[in-house]
């Protein structure tokens, strides 16, 4: 049954409890739910606090403050309308242990405190499913960890002597990670992507898909991720005993005993799409999965667009997202 979760109303997850230390949990910080509309700052700051002891010897590792060089870039302006809640809105305030994470926490009881979330959810036409929609969020700066990568000593304002930084810069395939309209440059080396400034200093780093985050590799201990919520375990049929983790646009299966990555389950855009807000750029074409095309047909009143496991109903005129529809049969 397809579950339509809220129409024409703002979904707002108010806050989490970032101060809860998760440092012993491999230094992970947990990301938030779909409606959590921070743009990097608050959540990443929380991660800084969450981060465990720096085992790299470099010191100062933590989430970088991102700038979004791609996300939600609108065509014809950056305005993002936020509609006011409409009538027939049911408000719910709940403080609870996140159901989506309960399964995950159960498997890792020895890893420290459980995160508590406070949610404010406004819905209309809610059906029998009372869980909020949850989607992943791509990090504005790709989730770069600021500071020095493991094994590299901090020197001055950077991590590497300039000569060594230039050595990283010579990688042939760096263009694959190039970004436009930014002074920052990205260099790939041995499983990790490095951001370097014009002076050649390493300003941040992250493990990348196929590199340090490849099947068979052990999950980097300092790299944070989001556990996979229940909806995604259902959508992707993840019924085996692995941990499932989201990081930087990909969903990974991880052996909980060895921390080894067993498979890449899915690629995701990580685009934040919120009911009541404007559809982000990049969804102009009807892309509903074939199995659902009879149900969700574009009309003069509503368009339907797929992203990361959900179909979004969009007002063609205002481009406001009217509903997020789960695809479970």
């Amino acid at each position, binding site marked *: 049954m397809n579950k339509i979760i809220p129409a024409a109303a703002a979904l707002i997850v108010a806050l989490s409890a970032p101060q809860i230390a998760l440092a012993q949990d491999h230094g992970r910080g947990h990301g938030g739910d779909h409606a959590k509309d921070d743009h990097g700052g608050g959540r990443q700051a929380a991660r800084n606090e969450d981060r465990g002891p720096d085992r790299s010897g470099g010191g100062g590792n933590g989430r970088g403050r991102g700038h979004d060089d*791609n*996300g939600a*870039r609108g*065509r014809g302006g950056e305005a993002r309308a936020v509609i006011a809640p409409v009538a027939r809105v049911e408000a719910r305030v709940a403080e609870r242990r996140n159901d989506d994470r309960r399964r995950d926490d159960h498997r890792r009881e020895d890893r420290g405190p459980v995160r508590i979330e406070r949610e404010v959810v406004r819905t209309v036409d809610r059906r029998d499913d009372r869980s909020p929609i949850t989607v992943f969020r*791509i990090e504005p700066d*790709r989730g770069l960890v600021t500071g020095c990568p493991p094994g590299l000593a901090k020197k001055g304002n950077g991590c590497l002597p300039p000569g060594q930084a230039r050595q990283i810069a010579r990688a*042939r*395939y*760096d*263009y*694959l*990670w*190039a970004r*436009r309209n930014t002074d920052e*440059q990205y260099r*790939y080396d041995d*499983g990790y992507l490095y951001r370097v400034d014009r002076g050649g200093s390493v300003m941040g780093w992250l493990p*990348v*898909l*196929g*590199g340090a985050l*490849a*099947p068979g590799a052990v999950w980097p201990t300092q790299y944070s991720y989001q556990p996979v919520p229940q909806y995604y375990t259902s*959508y*992707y*049929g993840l019924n085996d005993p692995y941990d499932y983790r989201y990081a930087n*646009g990909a969903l990974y299966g991880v052996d909980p005993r060895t921390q080894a990555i067993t*498979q*890449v*389950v*899915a*690629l*995701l*855009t*990580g*685009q934040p799409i919120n009911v009541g807000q404007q559809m*982000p*750029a*990049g*969804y*102009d*074409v*009807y*892309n*509903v*999965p*074939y199995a659902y095309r009879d149900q969700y047909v574009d009309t003069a009143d509503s368009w339907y*667009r*797929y*992203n*990361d496991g959900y179909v979004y109903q969009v007002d063609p005129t205002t481009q406001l997202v009217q509903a997020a529809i789960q695809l479970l049969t």
Partner: protein
Amino acid sequence: MRTIMRRALTPLAVILLAACGGEEKAAGDATAETQPSDRTLAATLQNADGYGALGAAVRNAGLTSVLDGVGPYTVFAPADAAFTAAGTGDFTDPSLRAQSAALLRAHIVPGALTRRDIAAAIERDADGSVQMRSMANTLLTFTRDGEAITVASESGARARLTGAENVATNGVLQPVDALLVRPDAS
């Protein structure tokens, strides 16, 4: 719908059609309704002649499970000739697994996009230009170039949708005649 395109099957389309068992009606025909096959994207790619380089990159990146999974995705699939023309090197090299993954993310968008869908969106747009977000978190821009549909990446790479699309169980394989990354873009 704007222009009815000629229904001329190119040799490549014939090969791809025969290899993949899809039920395309016409190569490059943006108005034709394409029927889904019973294969996943991974299986479709594996059986498609002329797309060995892309298939090798998928395997090298460890993303076969993704293209065999639920999806859905649309993969803009450069033919082997496009890899050769771009001079990108050998993405079967185990030392290039991360590069293979990055390359593929730039060619994949969420959902199922048929050529007919893209053409309809272009037709509907006042500027005749529509965008989709890739798994590399970049925007791909689609426009008309005569009867063809072109796609351009943020890096400035451009390609034409060519040959016959294949609708798989978990998405669509859309052949393109060039890579959507530019080796000189860094």
